[in-house]
């Protein structure tokens, strides 16, 4: 039983006709950072809410450290810490007061509560700002306070729902460092994100989730190896030469080569093996730039679903169609 810290089995949630989460099953092992990677609306938050006992699943079951989310929600709540996507701290109170209330809600009193509040705030680097009202905090500080509030009771399992959403690069990296630190302490962390860099940087294993379903699972390396080889971009000074170059590369090297404007895009097994002969072939051509793109999770997602991870800008007709198709079924 203790093989999985978090175990989901066919977890399903319907909202009316919409299936937000569709038979999701996975197992996050103790001490592992397990990431749900997918675009907005993929069902990541709904999954976390079910695991955190905030939502009743329509079907399926899940266990946190062996406790059933359906039958033992009280034990589950003691075991987990949740950093929800939305900010939850009371901004009329200070950071200290927020964390202290949290410690008391978990049953610690007097000195023990204060000790835990101090430890959590110190760990998140907020002790200096602890006695200021939360309304004066920056975005990064508020996120860190959310994590501090979720840590006071030393949970073994931590749910982080888009923890760096809307943060600048510096605050994001800071938070990543702290999450790595928590991992070293042996916590099991379930991290949802739609930033593929975040999943790559932090996760031991990634489940790619789309339209409520897990479409692939594995370590970032395993997932990336699904994409064959690498991509070489050759940028030419004269766009008129792109067609001819693409044809001759395909013929001579037996690779996929495609002209795109002033650039020829070449798909190869390994850039290390192909580059020497490629360079020999193109010597004398007016090439202004050679760029090698290693596969990343963004491309894995594209390959699996035909779409990009981040599509939040504007109305997306394709996505809308897929959603409505899903509703009809």
């Amino acid at each position, binding site marked *: 039983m203790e093989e999985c810290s978090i175990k989901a089995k066919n977890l399903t949630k319907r*909202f009316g006709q919409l299936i937000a989460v569709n038979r999701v099953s996975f197992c996050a092992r103790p001490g592992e950072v397990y990431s749900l990677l997918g675009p907005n609306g993929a069902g990541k938050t709904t999954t976390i809410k079910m695991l*955190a*006992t*905030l*939502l*009743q699943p329509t079907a399926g079951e899940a266990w946190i450290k062996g406790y059933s989310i359906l039958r033992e929600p*009280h034990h589950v*709540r*003691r075991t*987990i810490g*949740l950093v*929800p996507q*939305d*900010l*939850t*701290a*009371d*901004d*009329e*109170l200070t950071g200290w*007061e927020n964390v202290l*209330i*949290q410690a*008391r*809600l*978990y*049953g610690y*009193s007097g000195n023990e509560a204060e000790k835990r509040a101090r430890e959590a705030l110190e760990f998140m680097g907020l002790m200096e700002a602890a006695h200021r009202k939360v309304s004066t905090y920056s975005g990064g500080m508020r996120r860190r306070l959310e994590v501090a*509030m979720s840590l006071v009771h030393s949970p073994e399992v931590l749910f982080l729902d888009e923890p760096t959403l809307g943060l600048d690069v510096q605050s994001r990296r800071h938070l990543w460092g702290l999450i790595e630190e928590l991992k070293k302490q042996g916590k099991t962390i379930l991290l949802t994100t739609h930033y593929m860099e975040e999943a790559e940087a932090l996760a031991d294993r990634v489940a790619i989730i789309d339209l409520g379903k897990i479409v692939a699972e594995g370590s970032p390396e395993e997932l990336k190896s699904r994409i064959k080889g690498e991509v070489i971009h050759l940028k030419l000074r004269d766009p008129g030469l792109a067609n001819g170059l693409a044809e001759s590369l395909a013929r001579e090297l037996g690779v996929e080569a495609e002209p795109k404007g002033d650039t020829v895009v070449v798909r190869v097994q390994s850039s290390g093996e192909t580059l020497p002969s490629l360079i020999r072939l193109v010597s004398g051509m007016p090439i202004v730039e050679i760029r090698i793109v290693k596969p990343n999770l963004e491309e894995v997602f594209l390959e699996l679903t035909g779409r990009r991870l981040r599509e939040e800008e504007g109305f997306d007709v394709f996505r809308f169609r897929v959603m409505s198709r899903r509703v009809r079924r």
Partner: protein
Amino acid sequence: MGATLVLFRREVKKWVGRRPVFVMSMITPLIWLALFGKSLNLYSMFNVEQPGFAEVVQRLVEQRIMELFGTLDYFTYLASGMLVVFALFQSAFGGVGIVFDKRLGYMTRLLVSPIPRVSIFMAKILGTLFRITILSAVLFAAALALGFQVKPGITAVDLLAAWGVILLLSLGLASIYATMAFYANNHEVLFAAMNLINLPLMFTSSAIFPREQMPSWLRAIASINPITHAADLVRYHLVGRPLSSYAEPLALLAAFSLTLFLVGLALSLRSLREVS
């Protein structure tokens, strides 16, 4: 009990941190008292300083006013009623904090923690009762300063009893509004409900004018209005206006409040079972 206390302390702390709101919430009742209560001077209306105006007529007028209002001073009558009406409005405001806790995510934080759900409801109700206690005391002190005439021989027991009556009424009212707030998704719903419920409740009670003067249909409504019973009981203790029965209004008020409290508690717990 522990979690209720922790959350109750949060309510108090937040309220104390909002002193401007405290000041503003006192302005409305003070305007009622000082402007309305003081300008409608019943006694001087009939106190005609004129030779030949029979002393016996004067005494009859006084007697009639005393009979109806329990005091010759309308301000005192109104102020005792306003203590109750003020509790009505404060009970309604208590619900607003719940809506904000939901909207600002704090409720998620509470629901994911291993506290009994009932403590979330209880802390809100206790917070409201606490605010009403402090604000009523301040309002009463202000009324005294403006010339409130307490009944001769008033005791601490009378003050405590009046406080108890106000809290009993507030328990029921705060429960209704808290329940509405647990189901409402924005505070405007709550303000709309407040406008819909509070003013009719105030004007169909004995808080502003005595029941005896009302047309029969209005008197019928007033007799089942809990504000009437609370105002009558408070007035009995503070002003000395006699009651034909003490037990009856108290029993009706208690039945009203406890029913609403229990129903509100059950419904609120139901709403907390699942958040989306």
